[in-house]
């Protein structure tokens, strides 16, 4: 069924794994957004990948119109996505947090359907990419040859993820949001503005995926149809790493990144996402709380 690649030397495996790891960190940041939203608001953002392609198209437009490097544009893009996420939660999703799971899900499916097709209308179905000054640069690290774009994107992902960790750990607002996540009614009782905090959280999750989208723009091309694919990828990562666990999302991202890269090398590249789904099925069956997730009663 699959065409098998000819035998390749160990260095190639190593290189492919390293490249998968770097991409995986950006995946991880994207999934982190999903995880934060689920961990606090308890809503599964089925429009996650579509929000990421929104960010990618903004990055594309900024680059083609003003020559703005996506890794710089990342900051305003994250801000725009933050606002989008905040308004989405406060306006549309908030009335749904007490509704059954499947009706929340359908709401977000509707939002995803609208987003992906608006992009199709605005930008057409063809793949579009950016060529930065470092698009073809690479660094040699011993036997490894590292793409400069991927390295920069991965570093940016780590910086943003670290900032998010610090926010939740050290700021008062971050702690208030965590309190909300742990005990919804308790948070209401002590007078926290839960609606505002939820919207903030959704905004933060959207900002994460926005930043990740900008980063991915220097690595891959964008078409509207990758939106749903990345929504699924984000689910796979978050379920693998553990829903609601922030380190889990990063770990899951790296794991999926490497798995996909090696799977693409060993079999055909087009079959690579099969490995990610294989991993998902195994995790769902044998460790449903995810690798780093806490077991819920």
């Amino acid at each position: 069924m699959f065409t098998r690649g000819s035998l390749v030397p160990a260095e190639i495996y190593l290189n492919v794994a390293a490249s998968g790891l770097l991409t995986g960190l950006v995946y991880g940041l994207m999934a982190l957004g999903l995880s934060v939203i689920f961990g606090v608001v308890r809503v599964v953002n089925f429009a996650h990948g579509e929000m990421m392609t929104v960010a990618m198209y903004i990055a594309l437009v900024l680059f083609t119109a003003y020559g703005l490097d996506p890794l710089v544009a990342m900051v305003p893009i994250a801000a725009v996505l933050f606002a989008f996420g905040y308004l989405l939660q406060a306006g549309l999703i908030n009335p749904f947090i007490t509704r059954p799971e499947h009706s929340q899900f359908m709401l977000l499916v509707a939002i995803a359907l609208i987003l992906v097709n608006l992009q199709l209308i605005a930008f057409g179905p063809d793949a579009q990419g950016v060529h930065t000054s470092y698009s073809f640069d690479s660094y040699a690290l011993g036997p490894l040859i590292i793409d400069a774009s991927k390295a920069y994107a991965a570093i940016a992902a780590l910086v943003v993820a670290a900032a998010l960790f610090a926010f939740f750990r050290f700021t008062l607002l971050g702690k208030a949001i965590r309190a909300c996540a742990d005990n919804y009614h308790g948070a209401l009782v002590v007078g926290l503005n839960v609606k505002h905090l939820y919207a903030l959280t959704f905004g933060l999750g959207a900002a994460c995926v926005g930043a990740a989208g900008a980063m991915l723009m220097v690595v891959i091309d964008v078409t509207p149809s990758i939106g749903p694919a990345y929504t699924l990828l984000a689910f796979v990562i978050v379920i693998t790493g553990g829903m609601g666990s922030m380190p889990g999302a990063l770990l899951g991202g790296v794991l999926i990144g490497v798995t996909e890269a090696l799977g693409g090398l060993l079999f055909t590249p087009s079959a690579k996402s099969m490995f990610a789904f294989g991993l998902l099925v195994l995790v769902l069956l044998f460790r449903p709380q995810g690798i780093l997730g806490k077991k819920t009663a």
Partner: protein
Amino acid sequence: MIKLLLAGVPRTGLLMLAILLALFVALPFFVSDYLVTVLFLILYFAFVGQAWNIMMGFAGQLSLGHALYVGLGAYAAAALYVHFGISPWIGLWASMGISAVAGAIIGFLAFRFGVGGVYFAILTIAFAEFARIGFDHFTWVDGSSGFFLPVANYTENDLWNLRGSTRMFYYLMLGMTVAALLACHALLRSRAGYYWLAIRESPEAAQALGINIFKYKMYAVVLSAAMTSLAGVIFAFFYNNLFPEQIFHISRSIELILAPIIGGVGTLAGPLVGAFLLTALAEGLREVMLQLGVDVPGVKQVFYGICLLLVVMFLPDGVWPPLSKLLGLDRKTPDREG
């Protein structure tokens, strides 16, 4: 049997059903080929919506991967026809068998390992994606380059091999939709129907009342999968080409659950009402765009998205429950005594 089928349907409802059926039978004699295709699509979505509804609407298990069963059904019957000249009327048994097994595998894994709710939905997507990528590399049915059925100019309808006019497919689909409606009506009034609703409403209470919830959830998945695959058979022979990228795609899974959700999850009329509304509105939209001279892909889907959004926001039970109240058709329980 007839009496059982008609139990609990108010007389005005029966009358309206009869008129509707007569209308559906007569319409193709008066309208254009194009409109017959539109009517065919309404019935197609009503049928798959009805099949999906068994799982979600009756047994409460949210599947977002039903394109899997459409695709498996389509490929099985088409491959048997193209490679061995086997009639789709025989091939459909293979389609149903394969889809039932696929449904049983997914159901077994999910229900045995306690994968529920949104996680279950994602598992169903994952299996549809497996199939999509797998069929891309499945050379027996020509992989990603697409699988084609031989097409000629048919002067005569060949029902046995499903080669013929749109009208033939239309009447076939009409028969299937009516049969599905009657079957679901009877199912809801059977032991399995009661058990499914109980499981949907409260699995713990259902189990405490002696219901083997694993078994009945499995029945729902297997039945829903087999029924959905029949729509796949029709799809294959109507369109004559199959691409894994399209038929197994997540957007297809979503497209086929729109009608029952908009019509009303768990209701018998919901899938038909939803399919009618969606298709009619989408056709209206197409007409408007034609007049305006705009031709952009994606507009229809945005419109679907907005419909879905409005319905989940403002009519969480779908269009049919309030509509049936308006029409005075909402008597709930079969009143056997009087």
